[in-house]
């Protein structure tokens, strides 16, 4: 009997709390990010990554084999200009579905209208050689001779697969080497203008159109730039430009 009363009391308290929060406009909503990937609207995921045949803007027919990338410093900014930053980084491996979502540790923002920005790769402050055990364990390091730190992207595949002579490409992005011993940061700040209205616990879909890596502003000719690209300064800088149009906001579920 005593227990029942206690339970009832607890229930009552919980409910009243909930009500309180509902009235409250500065409700703390937790946000998660869900990345989806496509090639000009064809969804790409672990099931079809290595079976889908795609064509890039320059007309090369491509098979994808491996696609891994790094993003960090997720930040939501509301209409009043307040920013909410999320710790941690997101390492995505297209072959692994469980890497598509990013659930930040410290979470909870007021409801409101936001825009999202994040860093492609690591900025200079974060791109510390060997500093992240999870990334080291995934062999995600960028060679010291090229400035060290980590890869931002590893995209491996074959092109001209519609000809008798398919060739490999290794589209890898990271710090740019100007000359021996002189390096230039190569991350990009992705700012997505689409307003995101958050009223409750929300999952923000971030869409990545892989085809855009080869499209805009630089139409990529794999016949000229297939491999090695890591030590190629111009190729690295073209990747940094092309990455800006790869991401967009998708659905917000809450």
């Amino acid at each position, binding site marked *: 009997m005593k227990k029942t009363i206690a339970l009832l009391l607890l229930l009552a308290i919980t409910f009243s709390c909930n009500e309180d929060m509902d009235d409250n406009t500065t409700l703390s909503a937790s946000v998660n990010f869900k990345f989806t990937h496509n090639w000009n609207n064809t969804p790409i995921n672990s099931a079809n990554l290595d079976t889908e045949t795609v064509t890039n803007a320059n007309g090369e027919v491509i098979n994808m084999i491996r696609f891994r990338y790094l993003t960090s410093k997720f930040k939501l900014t509301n209409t009043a200009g307040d920013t909410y930053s999320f710790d941690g980084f997101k390492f995505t491996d297209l072959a692994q579905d469980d890497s598509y979502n990013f659930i930040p540790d410290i979470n909870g923002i007021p409801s409101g209208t936001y825009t999202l920005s994040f860093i492609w790769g690591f900025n200079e402050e974060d791109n510390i050689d060997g500093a992240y055990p999870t990334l080291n364990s995934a062999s995600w390091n960028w*060679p010291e001779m090229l400035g060290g730190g980590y890869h931002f992207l*590893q995209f491996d595949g074959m092109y001209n697969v519609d000809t008798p002579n398919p060739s490999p490409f290794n589209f890898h992005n990271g710090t740019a080497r100007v000359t021996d011993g002189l390096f230039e940061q190569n991350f990009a700040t992705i700012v997505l203008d689409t307003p995101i209205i958050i009223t409750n616990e929300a999952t923000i879909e971030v869409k990545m159109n892989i085809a855009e890596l080869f499209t805009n502003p630089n139409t990529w000719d794999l016949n000229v730039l297939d491999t*090695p690209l890591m030590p190629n300064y111009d190729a690295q800088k073209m990747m940094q430009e092309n990455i800006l149009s790869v991401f967009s906001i998708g659905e917000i579920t809450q």
Partner: protein
Amino acid sequence: MKNWLTYSLLFITLISCSSEENSEENAYVPIPFQLEIPPLFEEKLIDPIIPVTNKLTVEGVALGKRLFFDNILSVNNTKACASCHSPQHAFADPSQFSVGVTNIEGTRNSMPLFNLAWNFDDRYFWDGHALGLENQALEPVVDANELGNDSWQPIEAKLNNHPEYPQLFKQAFGSSTITKTLVTKAIAQFERTLISGNSKFDKFSNGEVALTPQEQNGLDVFMDETRGDCFHCHGNPNNPLWTDNKFHNNGLDATFSDLGFGLVTGNPNDNGKFKSPSLRNLAYTAPFMHDGRFATLDQVIEHYSTGLQASSTIDPLMKKVAQGGVNLSEQDKADLKAFLLTLSDPSFLNNQAFLPE
């Protein structure tokens, strides 16, 4: 006051419970085993995988070691795990194909055993078909060409009738009824203690020794996308495992007599893929590749330099396949070899903890 009474009662109950247990003979509590993780691994890598269902204990590890070296696990008491996984060869086998109780050769080269707790995907064998070390250890005992038993039942019976094993299992696992599950748990515990992290290169990473100019150039060849480009699959100074433990086709064959990973996943795009081996301890683990086709490191380096074979599943990282390979200069080949040999760890071979008593 009332509370105080309740707590004291509770306390007394707890004390009496535990003292009761202690007085019971079968409540021997095994001593937790502390893995000696090299500081470099601690700093650079995520934690080793130790299943919660099989925590390491001093008794479990010692029992696993005894079983690993004991011929009792074979059908005719002639072979042990160690017959094909010899400590002097970093727990690999110098023969291209190992022979078990039948003296018939298998089709794959034995694999060295070290740093297995850092195989994060927990897939074992060249083709990754066993999930977890405990499951892996179930197989050799009943493999016709290895330890040759028809089933585990006669092995369990032999062990249960042994003068010492039942007591050792009781100490390690609290049960003197020996089952294949407990046998494989003990062996897996021992295998997880086989850590190799004391090579010349480890000492270089720790700032204790310098590399020779040849070894340094060899490292550069290894890390240079325009030369060796080995690091995308075989680790790097920040990944001291020297493997990614993933499955790749490194261009050994144009057609496959062994489908490897493809046989396991059923995906034809995985045909001809095998697990990247660690490049640690190459000085002791010849011959090389899943079928032991290369007797020397020079042959391996020549393979990557000029011997690549195109196929539909060749890894795109084998980017110079159209030219036969990365075409290293004689100097770079020699230096690459010198660097690779800095990854060998003589102290691993002589570690008393890994040798039979």
